Each structure stands twice: as C-alpha cells, then as structure tokens.
C-alpha cells in the first residue's frame, strides 16, 4: 500500500451470485474521512458492492483491501448495516440490548459487558436521540426509530468504517436529517462512511462524495455531481426523470415510467439520448 492508505480499495473486483455477475471490474478508492454515497438504479449492484466491502460476499476476481488489510482481517473495525427489510424484528429484545450487541466483538469470549460497555451504549443512544427508548422492545418501534437504534448499534462498535445499505430510505425527513448529521460527524472525526441510497437529492446535499454504479463504476466524484444530467442519464439509462423546478433547481427521481411524449417542463434521458 501507499503511505496514504485508502479506507477501502477495490482493484478490478468482480462479484455476483451464481453465474450472474452483479459487478464487473470495479476499481474504487475510498479515502479515510469520506462520506460516500453509492447511487445507481435498482439491480445496479449497490448492495453487492457493500457486501463485498463488508467481507460478506467473496469477489469472483480482483483485489480488495479494507482499512489497509485483506478484507475480513479488520472486520472488528467495520460496521455493516443491511437493508432494514432483510431482517424480522418481531422478537422481544430491548433497545439497549440490541445496541449492546455492537459491543460484543470488543468484549471478548466468555466476558460480560462492563460499565465501560454500558457507557458506550448510553452514548450511542444519546447520539441517535433514543435514550428515552432504551428499555422499549425493538419490535414496538416505528421504522425510523429502529433505523436510529441500528445506527446506534453500529456506533457502539466504534468502527473506523461504516458500510450502510440504504440507511435513510423510507424514513421521515426529521429522521433522515438526524441520521445524516450523525454520519457527517463521524466522517468529520476521520471515520469513513459508505452508504447506498435511492434518494438522489439526499446524496447531492448531504454526502461529500458519490460513486455512480450500474454493474460497473460509471463515475466517482464530488457529491454535487449526482445532479449532473449527463451522468445521471449514463447511470440510470431509461430510468431517470428530471423535473425543472421554479427556481431552476433540478429534481431527479429514480423511477421507472412510461410515456409517448414527455410533458414540456420535463427532460427525459433514455440511454443517454434526450427523448
């Protein structure tokens, strides 16, 4: 590695499930302290990319280093948050216990949590503004509250790298703002945040960097590029709709749609050509 090691470095990485490659020849360098949004249409390989970085999916080919080590070696310093929909939360476990689970890899085999661990849990709950819910059952919380709790679990693990699959999808605006404030503070403190998102406005406004993915890396750069119409068209193909607002600001939606003739105020990009 160089003297300035990346937090995550992928070199020609291909990965997928069975015979199907979800990602081909992805090369990507994420520097420490990044707040990186991974954007791209459904099925673009965003979740696959995060799973590869988390060591949950082994690449078919290519080289991959996480926190300066082969993937998996630094797993204790990595917090991965799967898409909320992937887990059934109907079991009777208290919020504080869920957050404590983030501490387990640090506690060690056969040891029970100490007051230091409990302090970290308390701090993490404060950070996500869920202290009042510490004794509540996780299944009784709203979707947004659960998202806060799972971010708290990630924080309690004191990771150097956060890998978050759609952390702000489907939550209310206040929760989204709060969660992004937390992630921004983590990045400012030198930790690295990589998060996939469908919300292009959030990606443009709240993240610092963006990676455009569609089976491969289309582009990487500063987050405001998310609203670059040419890049969007290239990344989303026929699935981008750009509305020209009153003040000239562009709103981009990742949404499949059908039409014969686009209304006058909308610019549609289909496979790179205006249609």
């Amino acid at each position: 590695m160089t003297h300035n090691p990346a937090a995550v470095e992928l070199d020609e990485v291909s990965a997928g499930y069975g015979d199907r490659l979800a990602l081909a020849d992805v090369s990507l360098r994420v520097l420490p302290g990044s707040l990186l949004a991974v954007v791209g249409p459904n099925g673009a390989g965003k979740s696959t990319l995060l799973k590869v970085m988390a060591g949950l999916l082994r690449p078919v080919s290519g080289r991959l280093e996480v926190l300066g080590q082969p993937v998996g070696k630094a797993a204790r310093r990595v917090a991965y948050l799967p898409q909320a929909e992937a887990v059934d939360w109907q079991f009777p476990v208290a919020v504080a216990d869920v957050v404590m689970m983030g501490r387990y890899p640090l506690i060690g085999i056969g040891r029970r949590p100490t007051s230091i661990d409990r302090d970290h849990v308390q701090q993490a709950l404060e950070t996500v503004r869920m202290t009042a819910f510490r004794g509540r059952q996780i299944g009784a919380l709203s979707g947004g509250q659960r998202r806060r709790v799972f971010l708290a679990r990630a924080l309690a693990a004191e990771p150097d790298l956060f890998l978050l699959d759609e952390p702000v999808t489907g939550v209310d605006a206040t929760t989204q703002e709060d969660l992004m404030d937390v992630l921004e503070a983590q990045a400012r403190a030198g930790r690295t945040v990589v998060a996939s998102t469908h919300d292009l406005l959030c990606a443009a406004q709240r993240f610092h960097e963006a990676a455009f993915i569609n089976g491969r890396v289309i582009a990487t750069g500063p987050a405001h590029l998310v609203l670059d119409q040419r890049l969007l068209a290239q990344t989303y193909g026929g699935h981008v709709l750009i509305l020209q607002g009153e003040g000239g600001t562009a709103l981009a939606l990742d949404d499949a749609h059908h039409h014969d003739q686009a209304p006058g105020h909308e610019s549609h990009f289909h496979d790179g050509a205006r249609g």
Partner: protein
Amino acid sequence: MNHASPTMRLGRIRAFSRAATVVVATMALLAGVTGGALAQSPAASVAPAPSVAPLPSAGPDALRIVTTTTVFADIVRNVAREHANVVSIIPAGVGPEDYEPKPGDAQLLADADLIVSNGAGLDDFLQELLESGTGGQTPQLVLGDGVPTLMFDGEVNPHFWLDPSLVAQYYVPSIIGALSTVDPTHGADYGNYGSAYTGQLVQLDTELQAIVATIPEANRKLVTFHDAYPYLAEHYGFELVGVILENVGAEPTAGELAALVEKVKAAGVKAVFSESQFNPELAQALADEAGITTVVTNLYNDALGETEADTYESMMRLDIERMADALR
C-alpha cells in the same frame, strides 16, 4: 403382592446402579432396552412436540464449532445458523458425566474455530482432551461461567440449561459474543439470530409455565434419577424431593436408598422419573419400594434424543409435558 424384604430390594437396586455406570459408556447398546420400557410408560401418550423448521445448512466458508454435548450444539446452531457447522463430541443419547473420549476427538478440537462447553464440572473431559492434544490454542467458550449457581449435595450443580430463562439470559448472549469475536464479519447476523432465538426461548418458557400450572400445587414434587433438575425445579416451582444417583458413577448405599424411600413416602410423591440415557429399572425398583405406581423413564436432560427430543426446545417441552402428565 409378593413383598420382598427391604434388604433384598436394596441389594437389587445396588446391582442396577453398578450397571448404570457402565450404561453411560455403552449407551447405544442399551437404547433398545430403554426404548422398550418407554413404550409401556404412561407418558408415551404425550403428543409429539410441534415440528420446528430445519435450520439452514452451512456453506464451505462456515465456522467449525465443536461442543461437548448435543444440547449445546443445538443452542449454538440456532445463533450461528448458516455461518457454522456445529458438531457435538458426545453423540445424541449419551450423557457427558462419564464420557470416555474417542481417538478422533482431539483432532476434531484441533480443527475447530471455537470450542463450547458448559463447565461447572459437567464436561471436564474436555480440559483433559485439550491438555493432551493440540486444541489448546482454539478459542473456548464456557457457557456456565457467570451463571448464578445453585448448590446441590454440597457441589455446584452444572445443569443450568434445564431452565430456559438461564439459556436466554446467559447462554445465548455469551454465544452471540463469542461468535461475533471469532467472526466479526457476521456480527450483526449473530445478534439478530440470537435475539430471534431468545424470543423463541421466552415463548417456550411461557408455554412451560402454563403446562406446570395445570399440575396441582401439592403434586409438584420431583424424584429423578440423577441431579439434573435443581434449576428447572427452582424456576418452575417444583420441590426436589431427592435423586437416586447423587453422582453418576457413585453407587447409592443401601442406607441412602432406604432413606430416599422414606423421604419419598413422607412427601407423598406421585411419580418417579428416570431418563432415557439410563437403565430404568433402578427407578422402577425405588417406585415399587415406595409404593408409587407411576414411573416415567424417558426424560431427557444431558443429551438430546435421536428420534424424539432432538432439539433443545422439543426436549424441554417433552420433559415438562411428561412431568405434568405423571403428576396431575
């Protein structure tokens, strides 16, 4: 009825107790004998436990985890799911107290990513195996460490897991912790699976409480073959009147047995319980002596069964159902 003299009876009991110590090492041979007695037992009419969906099988990258007994293997499997292959050193149907290690056991331990035992004297053979072999470097989880203990007959009793609330409160969190430490990549999964399993155990406990509530309070008295049930008795409100073998391998003396007969009679115990891993005739002899007509010979505790009671949860259901059926 032909009344044998107490002395004769006790002589017979002692002979069976000697047999029982051998039984532990040669369980497979005797499984048929036990099974035969089981078929006539009044508890054989108990409905089978509800079937549980099979756990997902583990892939080639999965952790290799070795446990001392089948009970712990099942509990660990529920927390690790697809991320581990879990193997028990002692097979189903065999108890750990007198287990004689086999030649392959040391290799099994040497190849493991994590070794799980109970401690508190239940599975001491493991330490001997580790000292003699190469598994000494492998991370080890001792499930009983830190669990509040009950003394039984002057010793710490190791059978914590027969109280599901202790499994939920102590075993499962320490398994989540150990798995997350050995394999932090899947730490979130272990937390989720372990929590889901905790939920199942809480539900199991509620079910078992409801079954125990159907036993008249005055009848909640246990006489069992070995000292497996102090935690279960404490949790579910049974009085533990006595055990036939206070230590597996140690024969009860004629005096001890005569005293037990008196205790059992005085307490008005309704049934005598023995376990599928032991020869049932000693329990039968005690029951005859004390004038008790109900003898249940097929409880499970130290080892899962091969055909029934093949998961921790189904074992607990079966035990409590059989106790309730015999004591109602």
